[in-house]
């Protein structure tokens, strides 16, 4: 095998290859690789965005759950408070009623006591005056000795007092 006129193929290969490289680089490889690359980045971006959205969704869901939980807790606490308040009100009312009742009862007792005392005093007075009248009449008619009569009356009144007490 012998190599003939290598200069022709060397010359044309270098020329054609350089032209081909320049043309293809400008009009083929750069646009193709650029398009492929931008597509890859857009796919990657889309995937990243989807992941982001998924995460956000999860966050949102967690948030919702948290808010719901809080609301539920608040409601529970409100209910509890209300119940407590009700019980307290009822208890207060009961206490007050009892107090009032006992007060009224005490007043009534005091009033009754007063009335009784007044009635007794009245009675004593009336008994005394009655006795005096009786005694005057008895004395006027029967007794000459006034000291004897008075002693007798005093004894009799003492008897009345003990029976009344």
């Amino acid at each position, binding site marked *: 095998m012998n190599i003939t006129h290598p200069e022709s*193929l060397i010359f*044309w290969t*270098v020329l*054609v290859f350089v032209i*081909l490289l320049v043309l293809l680089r400008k009009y083929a*490889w750069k646009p193709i690789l650029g398009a492929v690359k931008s597509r890859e980045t857009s796919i990657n971006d889309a995937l990243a965005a989807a992941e982001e959205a998924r995460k956000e969704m999860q966050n949102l869901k967690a948030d919702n759950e948290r808010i719901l939980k809080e609301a539920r807790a608040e409601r529970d606490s409100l209910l509890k408070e209300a119940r407590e308040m009700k019980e307290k009100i009822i208890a207060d009312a009961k206490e007050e009623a009892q107090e009032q009742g006992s007060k009224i009862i005490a007043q009534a007792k005091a009033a009754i006591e007063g009335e009784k005392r007044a009635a007794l005093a009245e009675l004593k007075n009336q008994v005394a005056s009655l006795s005096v009248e009786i005694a005057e009449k008895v004395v006027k008619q029967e007794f000459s000795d006034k000291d004897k009569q008075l002693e007798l009356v005093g004894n009799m009144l003492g008897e009345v007092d003990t029976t009344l007490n």
Partner: protein
Amino acid sequence: MSIARESVKFIAFLTLLFSISVFSQEHHNNHSEDGSEEAFDPTEVIMHHISDSHDFHIAGNLSLPLPVILWTDNGLVTFMSSEFHHDEAGEVVVDKKGMKFVRYHDEIYYAGANGALDFDAEHHPANDRPLNFSITKNVFTLFLAAALMLLIFIPVARSYKKHQGAPRGLAGFMEPLILFVRNEIAIPNIGKKKYERYMPYLLTVFFLIWLGNLFGLIPFFPFSGTLTNDIVFTGVLAVITFLITTFSGNKQYWGHIFATPGVPKPLLLIMIPVEVLGMFTKPFALMVRLFANITAGHIVILSLFSLIFIFKTAAVAPVSIAFALFMFVLELLVAALQAYVFTLLSALFIGQAVEDHH
């Protein structure tokens, strides 16, 4: 079923192609043998087939004349190769601008005053020859491959501009190949940061070599010329790889060659020449590998066909064709594989040159 039918059709088609190429070769032999009753010389036929030529032989006596462009002592001289009338023995003299040219075994010489060649003791022509920039068969094939690449890839690039999204049609076929070069060859060997600068070179080389290999496997005009079985072509590509490697070599790369880290000073006396030699043997191996792989495949296929003429019987034809078909399919694989290997090793060498740290 339909796949089976398709493959039967495909094999029948390939067989047809082969018979065409066998017939054309037969005619060619008759043609070259007319005049004398020489015995069939397979070496000469095969060597003729795999060599460059000023005519593009199509079939039978039909040839496409190609322009001959000579840079002579008196300036540029151009004429069509048909003016030599298929003469390769230095007998037909072409007279241009007062100069006489003869062609002897594909080389064009200045003819002597008597219009003939002088031969030296070893039977080589002793005449001077002009610089020859002819559009030979291989140059023609190179133009064809380059034109085809422009025709394929520029519309593909346009189709990306027209519609975004998934590639369609031809772009859908070409994109995996381009991505293969990027993802399997460039990125692993050069690295993610620096590969982009070298992508245009790697892609151009990959597809040019592949097309050049495939053209040689298509047995009819305007293909049949093989770019890559010319050592000059593969040599130019290897030199370009060498230049890119050398000029993109960083401190690390040159440091590795002239002061290999971890090597004692006296040993550097041996290491430096070895490393410098390595710089040149790598592209040399690149050149020879591609050339020899493709040439060897062609020689085997042509040798198998030559058996028919050596035994002078058509009975050998089925065996020849069966084996040649097997070789042909293997060559289809080799065509892609060698393009891959050349690009891969180019990327590897470039990667070594631009590597940051070990």
